[in-house]
């Protein structure tokens, strides 16, 4: 229990009066000091009683979206807290979350004002486990204050804690998968280009293409029927949004422009192609996937929910790809054949051995596997990747490589006047089909 500023002042007055009483040997001054001491002790006991009553009234009900998740998956947690606050007191309650559970967004604390009846409030937030293992929500922290004292307590007893979540590990590497691409999509509408599927049958009119006559149906009904084939239209692009890391600080106007660009393209896709698919990532972490969403409003709601800087569970730390390592080794081999200086040759040999070791140990990244699994079921021709382009871009390189393998055109959109690393050779290094500014 800590005295507040007012109480600290009162203690100071008490000490001054006591000192004066002792020096002057004045009983009247001593009585004033003694009354103050009695008052302070009384206030202390009064606060202590109220504080205990508040703690006794706390009820916590916590539920998580799932009890078993994979590392890096985001899940929603809802905590309902009921507390009764006596008059003259303020109470603040905060979730005690393990440091390995990264809070993505939402509310993890609440303030309760004095009320004659118990107050029930809800905290809704999303967390991403950064480490695998079994975790139990360890309770809450309660902070209470009145004009004279303040105190906090960690409530981690059984009735304040739980439930537990089991976080399954994800490997860093995993084998890649294969996919077959298709370029068009059939729709149940008339179109200039016709597909292979039959949309409907109708009676023959003069001038209809004879090749479209369905002979079996015509023979059955004794009328000439022609087939109407499904229409064919281009495929909508997949939007990949690379959300910035929260650790990079507050995003500026570039992020707002990126949000506007993503929303605009999503709206265009829904209006033109009837649906849109959006993959939300942040570094090498897949956060959410909106698959073939036809409802524009729902799509925008989901985008609004996610479009903010997030905490990244894993980082790639500018990890070179296998092909990068091979290129480095080839370059060293070329230098070694021309090198005459034995010291430099020794250094290059050592460097080559290091790259070779890295190459042998490296497998397909888990993130790459997740990207492949997400993209494979989709029939897409183009991917638009929106990124702020700051910090590590190893994950973007992975996405571009997979898109190229699947023969999908890759368009990268990033802020104008980005880092020099993005300009000029970056397009060549990433091998994106286009690299444009979204604002």
């Amino acid at each position, binding site marked *: *229990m800590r005295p507040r*500023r*007012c109480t600290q*002042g*009162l203690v100071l*007055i008490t000490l001054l*009066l*006591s000192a004066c*009483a*002792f020096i002057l*040997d*004045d*009983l*009247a*001054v*001593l*009585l*004033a*000091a*003694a*009354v*103050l*001491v*009695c*008052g302070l*002790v*009384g206030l*202390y*006991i*009064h606060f*202590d009683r109220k504080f*205990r009553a508040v*703690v006794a009234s706390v009820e916590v009900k916590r539920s998580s979206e799932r009890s078993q998740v994979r590392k890096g998956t985001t899940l929603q947690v809802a905590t309902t807290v009921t507390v009764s606050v006596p*008059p*003259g007191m303020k109470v603040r309650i905060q979730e005690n979350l393990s440091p390995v559970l990264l809070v993505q967004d939402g509310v993890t604390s609440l303030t309760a004002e004095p009320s004659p009846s118990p107050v029930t409030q809800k905290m809704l937030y999303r967390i991403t486990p950064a480490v695998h293992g079994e975790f139990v929500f360890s309770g809450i922290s309660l902070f209470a204050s009145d*004009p*004279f004292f303040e105190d906090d*307590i*960690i*409530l*981690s*007893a*059984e009735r*304040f*804690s739980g439930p537990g979540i089991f976080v399954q590990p994800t490997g860093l590497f995993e084998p890649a998968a294969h996919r077959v691409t298709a370029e068009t999509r059939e729709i149940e509408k008339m179109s200039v280009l016709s597909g292979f599927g039959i949309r409907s049958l109708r009676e023959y009119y003069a001038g209809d293409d004879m090749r479209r006559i369905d002979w079996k149906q015509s023979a059955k009904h004794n009328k000439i029927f022609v087939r109407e084939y499904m229409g064919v239209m281009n495929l909508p692009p997949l939007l990949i949004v690379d959300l910035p890391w929260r650790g990079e600080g507050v995003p500026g106007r570039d992020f707002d422009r990126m949000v506007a660009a993503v929303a605009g393209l999503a709206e265009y896709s829904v209006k033109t192609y009837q649906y849109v698919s959006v993959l939300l990532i942040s570094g090498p972490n897949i956060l959410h996937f909106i698959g073939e969403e036809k409802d524009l409003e729902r799509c925008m709601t989901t985008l609004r929910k996610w479009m903010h800087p997030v905490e990244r569970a894993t980082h790639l730390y500018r990890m070179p790809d296998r092909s990068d390592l091979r290129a480095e080794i080839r370059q060293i081999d070329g230098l070694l054949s021309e090198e005459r200086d034995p010291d430099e040759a020794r250094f290059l040999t050592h460097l080559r051995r290091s790259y070779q070791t890295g190459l042998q140990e490296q497998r397909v990244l888990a993130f790459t596997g997740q990207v492949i699994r997400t993209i494979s079921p989709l029939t897409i021709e183009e991917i638009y990747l929106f990124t702020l382009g700051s910090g590590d871009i190893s994950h973007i390189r992975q996405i571009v490589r997979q898109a190229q393998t699947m023969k999908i055109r890759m368009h990268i959109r990033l802020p104008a006047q980005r880092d020099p690393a993005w300009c000029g050779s970056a397009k060549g290094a990433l091998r994106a089909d286009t690299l444009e500014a979204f604002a």
Partner: protein
Amino acid sequence: MNSLSPDRQIILFMAAVVILVTAIHPTASWYLTLFLLALYVSVYWLTRTWHDRAFYLVCFGALLVVTCGAASIWEELIVAWMVGGSSAIAMGMTVSRNDLPALLALGSCTLAVALMIYLSNHVLLPLFVLSALTAGIAAVLAIRDYQFRKQCSGARV
């Protein structure tokens, strides 16, 4: 006619008590008592919207209490109760029936302390007793607090 608010009532009552005490037992510094009373009422009025109002009230109230103590210990105690009550009301600590036992206990404690001081010839002994009692109470409260926290953290008591 508008009825007076509780804080104004207690201030008026306190002023009446102080003037009565000064009239019954006039001292050489009676004008100082009245001046400090006026000062206290002014501070009470001026600090209506201030954050840590209790501190300023106790600062000026202590001076008034000590001045009243020049006449008699018991008069000083009554004025101290008045100052304490008005400060409590000023800080929004409304008194209900449930608080009555606590107030009675507090009043009894101050009465006992006043009696002890009244019976003492010098400051040293009552000051020592007061310090020892305060330290004892602080120790008991610290142990209770520790046990309470242990219970809340899920440990078996």
